[in-house]
């Protein structure tokens, strides 16, 4: 009796801690007052100003575009890595392969961003490309560090996967490619979707790497938001937060739905 009370209290306090700041943010987004902290009354004023703010809308479109493209590339390459690590025995310099595919998970973003920027500058000095940084360079950087997250999901899924199905199909005369495209990939499809959603969110949310690799015409949403709230508060960002949190939480729920790992 006593221990179940402690248990409920701990869980309640923990969840309160996790959700309280988000609720505060949403609450203040409905504040009429331009001074964020002084409550003047309920209003949708800042939502209205938000959808008429061209800078934010433009940044939002750029971010979605980069996120969708880099998630797609990262998913294709990440699936290849996950598959290779679990199913293909002969990988040249396997330790190096594992190093390349797992280090981006633990490397501080700042170091990754710096290395990408210096790489693009050096590349430009050598081959004259990319002559300026922008959406393309952000895209390349995002693919690079999202690959690892997809790979780890696919690797986990394929490790659980019952190999007998693949072997049975081979016995029935399916060739290697056919087994992959008609058996393996369809079965792990939910994990592939989960990987894509994760990569999409990571790219959409990234500020540090994008700040290093951005250029003219490539201000992503986090870059614009950061420039607005670095030194103070912004009522428009409050409204944006509420919308974005809601959208991202929905994406998160889809992720859980697709990522079978959490189902049992």
């Amino acid at each position: 009796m006593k221990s179940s009370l402690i248990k409920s209290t701990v869980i309640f306090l923990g969840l309160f801690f996790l959700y309280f700041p988000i609720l505060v943010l949403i609450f203040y987004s409905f504040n009429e007052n331009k001074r964020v902290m002084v409550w003047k009354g309920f209003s949708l004023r800042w939502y209205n100003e938000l959808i008429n703010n061209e800078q934010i809308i433009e940044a939002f479109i750029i971010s979605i575009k980069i996120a969708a493209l880099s998630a797609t590339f990262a998913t294709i390459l990440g699936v290849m890595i996950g598959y290779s690590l679990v199913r293909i025995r002969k990988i040249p310099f396997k330790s190096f392969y594992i190093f390349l595919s797992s280090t981006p998970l633990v490397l501080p973003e700042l170091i990754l961003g710096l290395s990408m920027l210096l790489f693009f500058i050096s590349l430009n000095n050598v081959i004259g490309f990319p002559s300026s940084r922008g959406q393309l360079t952000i895209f390349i950087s995002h693919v690079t560090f999202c690959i690892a997250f997809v790979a780890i999901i696919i690797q986990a899924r394929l490790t659980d996967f019952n190999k007998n199905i693949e072997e049975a199909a081979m016995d029935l005369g399916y060739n290697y490619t056919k087994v992959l495209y008609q058996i393996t990939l369809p079965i792990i499809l939910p994990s592939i979707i989960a990987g894509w959603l994760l990569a999409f969110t990571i790219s959409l949310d990234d500020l540090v790497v994008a700040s290093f690799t951005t250029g003219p015409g490539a201000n992503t949403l986090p870059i614009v938001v950061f420039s607005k709230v670095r030194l103070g508060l912004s009522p428009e960002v409050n409204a944006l937060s509420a919308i974005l949190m809601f959208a991202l939480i929905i994406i998160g729920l889809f992720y859980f739905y697709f990522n079978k790992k959490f189902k049992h």
Partner: protein
Amino acid sequence: MKNKLFEKYFVFSPYFWLVLFFFIPLAIIFKISISVSEWGMPPYQNIFLFDNGFKINTTFENYLYIFSDYYYIGSFINSLILALISTFFCLLIGFPLAFYIATSNIRLRNILLVLVVIPFWSSFLLRVYAWKIILQNNGILNVILLNLGITSEPLQLLYNQYAVIMGIVYTYLPLMILPLYGYLNKFDLNLIEASKDLGLNRFKTFFKVILPLSIPGIIAGSLLVFIPVVGEFIIPEMLGGSDRLYYGKILWEEFFINRNWPGASALAFSGIIILVLPIVIFQILYSRWSQKNEI
């Protein structure tokens, strides 16, 4: 019949991408970190000179420079301490949560787990921003403190190292809970009953049974929090003040403000060697080991 070409395609496409866009950039950081700095664009000299025959032009000056100046070392130490404190608080909050989630019934467990991780899916930047609102001079926390009569005037809660710790613990907590939960979930609850039957009290059960068995989870969670926090830039920038300088900040300034590319590269490369390399080596050894044991 195995299709060799097909296997090659699968292994080498990502291999090519990662060597080109991940390994070479890291190599370039190393290259610039051992280059001689100079005024100009780019602000360093080539490491290979060809004017009067071939000459290698490298230096360890940049490393000596950052390792002999307390400005850099001190910031790095500040970051390590920050990461240590934050990891500790994440563990302090995360452990009981993970433990109670793992010991709930299956239905509730899945719901709670999703509830814990969902905030992690919402924007990182905005979750830090939320604390900026909460900790304002006329923010919610100060209003509560004033109304309870704990203080007579608003406290300066923002722009100091405590606000930074708060923000970090908040944003990184799910990263601690997930691996902890992963290990506690596999844990046989009967062991707790057994230890109680054998006469151990709660305190002893915790320290002799539960804690030792969750060490792998604690290590995994702590690493997931500790390493990125050392390189954290956004949270100190948003919530911190001028009372403490951190590694991320000086790396950023060394590059963008002092325009000392070799110095910044040396800082970054030292970070890789000190923080990341030990983990990566451990991981590779572990995955080779577990694969061997599987075969």
